[in-house]
């Protein structure tokens, strides 16, 4: 909160006489008497979340500030018609410039207003403004606010309350007491002045000062290279030139660490990479594509905004997963909201524009029950982060009409300062629209939202670590999206694509126009006229216009002959399109502001001038230790099963899933929740992208950072195996699965941290080739560390566990062959596919029972390939009634989930499960069989009439008959005569559903 007694300072021209003496009207909108107070209740619920608040009374309202010269009666009339629902709400209106009125509520005497900070996107105010004007009210400006009436508290308590749940000070300001406002206009006239930066004579220290002052995040070597470049040119750079170089060379835009030179060593020796990603992950894809030769179904990999693969003879599919971690840490709602908006634009900017058909969103948080005393200073509580992130994803995806069909949430205390938010999107596009070719003399056209000061320095900020004071210094990087703006240009963009109106399209993401135009014009050259860019408000400098990261903007390359048609098409749906420059065959990036040249950079230097980074990477394998077999032998399997089902990673995510529209567009075939009462955990989502074909798409993911604590190599192979087996479980063809990598790591300038990442990348290379599963795109987010000073004054650093998300996009020939994980019919047989080893290292049994050490699961690529192929054959032949992959919690958890999802019981005997490579005490064997997390395993349900066929098809694959589906509503696990587990499905389901069954 800014200042408990502060008033909003009108941005500018507070003293300026407005042309027609406009007034700011404050319209409070309250629930009618007797109806629920949603706004006040939300605060109470949030307070309960952050635990320990005493009984407290609060009432809430929403409202609008309307600046207009029209009389009060006209404003009141319009507000009544446009801004409220008269059946359930009522309004109060006052002149916000009048002296404060008397106390409004004597029982709740403290009044608090929360407003978005000036310049933060306020979609509701934008809609209200359009609607009020449409109604005939001449409105100058509109802003929204929330208002609270609170029982008397001390200023200190109030400050605490405001910070905790009334407002987020990275985007909002709090005003205690009545509003007193004469203007809500923002922006001021801009006086052009060309800024240059005195680089030429700067010494190393001065260079560093320039770097920090400008928040450029450049390295010393990069600064020296830039200095040398301009010395050779015999001039100083302008501010915008320096910014452009910093953006283009940022980690976020150039991936200089992972795509750079790395000297790596581990227990097997050492290896030097000149481009690590290219020589591991890209290389695997190259090898696989060569091996596939004429059957190569990859179309465009690691080059465009998303990877593209062939779907059928008419359409291709594009897939991309992005991270939006830093913004989500500071403002969870806005961060996740713009993360989703951004990855959708990636899809819209792939090839000549793909149509988004579904989303997948994966999060990593600290546990939502984290005790307050474990929360470092200036960090939002994980429960608040989770609620905000889910709401942000929900509101963008649902508004865009893109179903969110898949996801995962992983909890670990090490994410407390750096939550991870992965946003993915899948799109379809015609075969012949998969590549873009901007041409010399094409207009550079901006479409979509206007440009403001939003997110200035977002790109460079994303590459710098977070620290305790981030929420004060980096507010500019936090934004709110406006999904409707994006939906509006999506509609015309895809139409324009089909009419062939442009030669290229890309999105404005990190770095704004700087990145979008810079990349699109790399091979040609571009000239941009910055004063032409439509602005949200006056006063932006040419540099701010160029690097602004305002959301919902795209850049097109439009042949001059098509401009009129494109302009007309956009205008017909109220989408703004503006020529802002031209691609010119100069090989240079030239920026002008009102005919003055403000930047002139050689594309060659911009894209090829960055000094090569060479980093050291070293991996030391932690010493293997065995789990204490005494401890293991005494674990009660029934209790352990309930505990694992109830741990946050495994527990039902229905509270999240049901807030997402997962069926819009009508393509849903297998939903995220399946089973007899639509509440079992599906392994993957299946969609039918076109209604005239039975061909389907499968979306799944794999992630298990806990394994990385043992060996990142096996963490990576396990994640790949999990993503693929999730796809195969629902029926995907294992020969048509494409995968994405997302690496989120700590500070990779530490050799051991980078070493663990390289090791994971090597695993990706090896297993991708063995499984013939190509990576088609990826993304990394490094420096996920949080620094703070603890109560004792010591510097503390929390680094996230190295986290690799594998997202998989599978295909299925005929969706009518899909299989879900719920048991279908009592009397059917239960088989386990795959081998069980002593893999309890990093397992969820270890998590809930505090076991230390053990062996992390590994993947045998050749065996896994055979299992996937043959299981798929059985699935295609309709020999399987249910199939579920074994992951967190192993056999016991998978069995329980299948039983309660199917509203059936199960009776199995684990005696026949052979244990490979197990050196465990025989007393521990049953807990190993039940809870080991060995990879490449499934439970399948087989109708007895198909048993012989099933066994024949699975010939050569490890197969164990465990027992059968029962109708008793009880899950019974035995070893011979010994009963290991005996629990009702009701108990099991309750344990699984209750932890995250939030209100």
């Amino acid at each position, binding site marked *: 909160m800014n200042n408990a007694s502060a008033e909003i300072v009108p941005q500018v021209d507070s003293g300026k006489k407005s042309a027609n003496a406009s007034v700011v009207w404050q319209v409070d909108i309250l629930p009618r008497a007797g109806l*629920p107070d*949603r706004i006040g*209740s*939300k605060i109470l619920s949030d307070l309960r979340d952050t635990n320990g608040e005493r009984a407290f009374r609060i009432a809430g309202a929403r409202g609008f500030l309307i600046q207009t010269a029209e009389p009060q009666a006209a404003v009141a009339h319009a507000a009544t*018609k*446009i*801004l*409220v*629902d*008269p*059946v*359930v709400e009522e309004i109060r209106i006052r002149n916000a410039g009048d002296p404060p009125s008397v106390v409004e509520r004597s029982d709740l005497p403290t009044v608090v207003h929360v407003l978005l900070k000036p310049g933060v996107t306020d*979609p*509701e105010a934008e*809609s*209200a403004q*359009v*609607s009020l004007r*449409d*109604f005939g009210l001449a409105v100058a400006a509109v802003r929204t606010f929330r208002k609270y009436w609170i029982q008397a508290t001390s200023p200190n308590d109030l400050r605490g309350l405001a910070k905790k749940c009334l407002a987020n000070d990275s985007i909002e300001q709090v005003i205690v007491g009545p509003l007193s406002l004469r203007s809500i206009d923002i922006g001021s006239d801009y006086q052009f002045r060309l800024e240059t930066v005195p680089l030429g004579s700067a010494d190393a220290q001065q260079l560093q000062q320039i770097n920090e002052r400008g928040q450029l995040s450049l390295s010393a070597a990069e600064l020296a290279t830039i200095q040398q470049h301009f010395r050779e040119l015999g001039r100083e750079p302008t501010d915008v030139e320096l910014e452009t170089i910093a953006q283009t060379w940022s980690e976020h835009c150039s991936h200089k660490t992972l795509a750079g030179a790395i000297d790596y060593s581990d227990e097997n020796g050492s290896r030097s990479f000149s481009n690590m990603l290219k020589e591991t992950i890209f290389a695997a894809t190259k090898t696989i594509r060569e091996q596939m030769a004429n059957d190569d179904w990859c179309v465009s990999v690691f080059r465009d905004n998303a990877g593209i693969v062939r779907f059928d003879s008419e359409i291709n599919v594009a897939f991309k997963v992005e991270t939006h971690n830093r913004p989500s840490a500071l403002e969870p709602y806005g961060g996740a909201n713009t993360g989703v908006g951004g990855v959708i634009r990636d899809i819209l900017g792939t090839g000549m524009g793909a149509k988004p058909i579904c989303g997948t969103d994966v999060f990593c948080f600290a546990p939502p029950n984290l005790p307050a005393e474990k929360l470092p200073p200036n960090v939002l509580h994980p429960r608040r982060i989770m609620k905000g992130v889910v709401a942000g994803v929900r509101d963008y995806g*649902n*508004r*865009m*009409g893109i179903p969110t069909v898949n996801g995962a949430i992983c909890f670990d205390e090490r994410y407390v300062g750096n939550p991870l938010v992965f946003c993915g999107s899948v799109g379809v596009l015609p075969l012949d629209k998969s590549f873009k070719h901007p041409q010399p003399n094409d207009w550079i056209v901006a479409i979509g939202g206007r440009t403001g000061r939003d997110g200035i320095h977002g790109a460079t900020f994303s590459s710098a670590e977070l620290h305790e004071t981030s929420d004060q210094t980096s507010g500019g990087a936090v934004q709110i999206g*406006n*999904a*409707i703006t994006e*939906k*509006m240009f999506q*509609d015309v963009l895809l139409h324009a694509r089909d009419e062939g109106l442009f030669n290229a399209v890309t999105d404005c993401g990190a770095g704004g126009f700087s990145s979008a135009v810079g990349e699109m014009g790399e091979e040609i050259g571009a000239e941009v006229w910055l004063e032409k860019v439509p602005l949200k408000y006056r006063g932006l400098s040419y540099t701010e216009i160029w690097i602004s990261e305002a959301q919902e903007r795209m850049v097109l390359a439009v042949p001059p002959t098509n401009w009129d048609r494109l302009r007309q098409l956009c205008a*017909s*749906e*109220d989408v703004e399109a503006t020529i802002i420059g031209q691609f010119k065959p100069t090989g240079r990036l030239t920026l002008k502001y009102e005919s003055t040249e403000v930047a002139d950079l050689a594309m060659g230097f911009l894209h090829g001038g960055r000094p090569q980074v060479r980093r050291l990477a070293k991996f030391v394998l932690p010493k293997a230790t065995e789990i204490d077999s005494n401890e293991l032998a005494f674990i009660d399997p029934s209790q352990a099963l309930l505990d694992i089902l109830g741990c946050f990673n495994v527990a039902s995510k229905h509270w999240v*899933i*049901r*807030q*997402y*529209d*997962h*069926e*819009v*567009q*009508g393509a849903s*075939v*297998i*939903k995220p929740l*399946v*089973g*007899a009462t*639509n509440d079992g955990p599906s392994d993957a989502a299946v969609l*039918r992208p076109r*209604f005239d074909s039975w061909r389907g798409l499968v979306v799944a993911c794999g992630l298990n950072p806990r394994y990385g604590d043992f060996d990142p190599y096996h963490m990576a192979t396990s994640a790949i195996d999990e993503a693929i087996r999730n796809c195969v479980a629902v029926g995907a063809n294992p020969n048509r699965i494409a995968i994405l990598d997302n690496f989120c790591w700590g500070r990779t300038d530490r050799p051991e941290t980078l070493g663990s990442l390289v090791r994971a990348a090597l695993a990706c290379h090896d297993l991708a080739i063995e499984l013939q599963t190509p990576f088609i795109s990826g993304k990394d987010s490094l420096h996920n560390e949080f620094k703070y000073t603890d109560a004792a004054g010591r510097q503390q650093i929390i680094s996230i566990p190295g986290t690799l998300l594998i997202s998989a996009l599978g295909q299925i020939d005929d969706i*009518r062959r*899909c*299989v*879900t994980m*719920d048991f*279908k019919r009592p009397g059917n047989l239960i088989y386990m596919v795959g081998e069980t080893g002593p893999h309890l290292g990093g397992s969820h049994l270890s998590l809930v029972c505090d076991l230390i050490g053990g062996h992390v699961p590994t993947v045998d690529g050749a065996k896994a390939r055979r299992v996937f192929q043959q299981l798929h054959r059985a699935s295609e032949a309709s020999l399987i009634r249910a199939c579920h992959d074994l992951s967190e919690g192993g056999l016991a958890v998978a069995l329980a989930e299948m039983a309660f999802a*199917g509203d059936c019981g199960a009776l199995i005997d684990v005696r026949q499960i052979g244990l490979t490579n197990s050196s465990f005490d025989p007393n521990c064997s049953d807990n190993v069989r039940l809870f080991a997390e060995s990879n490449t395993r499934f439970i399948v349900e087989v109708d007895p009439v198909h048993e012989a066929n099933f066994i024949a098809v699975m010939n050569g694959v490890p197969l164990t008959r465990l027992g059968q589906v029962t109708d008793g509503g009880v899950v019974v696990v035995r070893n011979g005569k010994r009963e290991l587990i005996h629990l009702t499905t009701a108990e099991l389901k309750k344990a699984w559903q209750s932890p995250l069954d939030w*209100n």
Partner: protein
Amino acid sequence: MAKPNVLVLRAPGTNCDAESAFAFEMAGANTERVHVNRLLDDGTLLQRFQILCIPGGFSYGDDVAAGKVMAAKIQHHLFEQMREFHAAGNLLLGICNGFQVLLKTGLLFADPTAELSATLTWNDNGRYEARWVTLQAASDRCIFLRGIKSMYLPVAHAEGKFMTRDSATLRQLDAQGQLALRYIAPAGEPQTNGESNLPFPFNPNGSQESVAGFCDPTGRAFGLMPHPERFVQPTQHPRWTRDGLQPVGDGLQLFRNAVEFFA
């Protein structure tokens, strides 16, 4: 049988237009997806059509209140056009956000110009909720529900709670047969929790009288919160892998009824 022409109305934020048009086409209609600006440009455009469908989505972001901005736009610019269209014996259908819009224009009430006496407001649980619900047709007046006893369809909304200004209004609307579609408990579940209202999740939003859909006194204008267009094909059912593939989805009959009305 002459195929009726369906205008599926698009506006900023509409997002169920394609599948709604597809459902009408499956039912045998000709469809056109038309941006609201075209209706504003050309006052005669509607004359080519027999059915106007306002599909689901988030018109204008559902800012202010769901459907409100779009409803205000219709009231201000298109009200007479749409009244005439309806008066000429044509059909109006609003699905989800389209229902929110249609209700808030007044066009579903006996006197469309009177102050609104009912609304769709925030779900009792205060958030967006996507789930499947069982529905029962509760009016013989509604053209769209002819011959339909019950349907199993998904809802996906945040502001779907049907509420009237007072209980007298509710009784009157009920007496007029306007509370045309109700949430019910699935077979085997008790229909009430002892109080008059069906409990969550069967009534997913706390609607009065479990109202899921509402028609005007003629039965030719109808709005509903559930999405019939999301269950026209058998693989859209959440349990088809258990129960097998039925020939067509439950929602299709609603579109067929609209088409057959013009047969």
